[in-house]
């Protein structure tokens, strides 16, 4: 009998809630780079484990950084 594949997803705690970061700065590209893929796309919440509010803050920060050419819109990796 094959076992039914029950995966218990590990509940991640949002890194920003834990650290109590009040403001995510769009100039901090080192931080924001952790939340984009090598293609330059914003990582999904299920990957990053952020809460709704902080995922949104990250997304707007990344978009601001892209406007100022601090982060790429696309990067042709591969």
């Amino acid at each position: 009998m094959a076992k039914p594949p029950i995966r218990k997803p590990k509940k991640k705690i949002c890194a920003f809630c834990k650290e109590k970061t009040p403001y995510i700065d769009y100039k901090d590209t080192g931080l924001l780079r952790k939340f984009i893929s090598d293609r330059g796309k914003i990582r999904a919440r299920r990957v990053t484990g952020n809460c709704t509010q902080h995922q949104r803050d990250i997304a707007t920060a990344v978009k601001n950084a892209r406007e100022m050419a601090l982060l790429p819109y696309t990067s042709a990796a591969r």
Partner: protein
Amino acid sequence: MRHYEVMVILDPDVEERAVPPAMERFLQVVRDGGGAVEKVDIWGRRRLSYDIKKKSEGIYTVVDLHATPALVSELDRQLNLNEAVLRTKVIRPDQR
């Protein structure tokens, strides 16, 4: 009076030592209008993630200032009129 943060990307063809006086000239508008410039941070030359106006580099500067909304929009307008300015962004850091 509100706290604003203005980021400016200048043309890389502008000489490095010509940057501080150029920024001062732009910010004179704020001072004349009763605003206060707190900090001018010149990051210097930095590679752009993608080309802007066929330029692959830019001189980044970040300015912290207190001013009225009208004053900041005037500053932004004047910056965008200038040929040496590639891009600007005005942000209110305490908003959020």
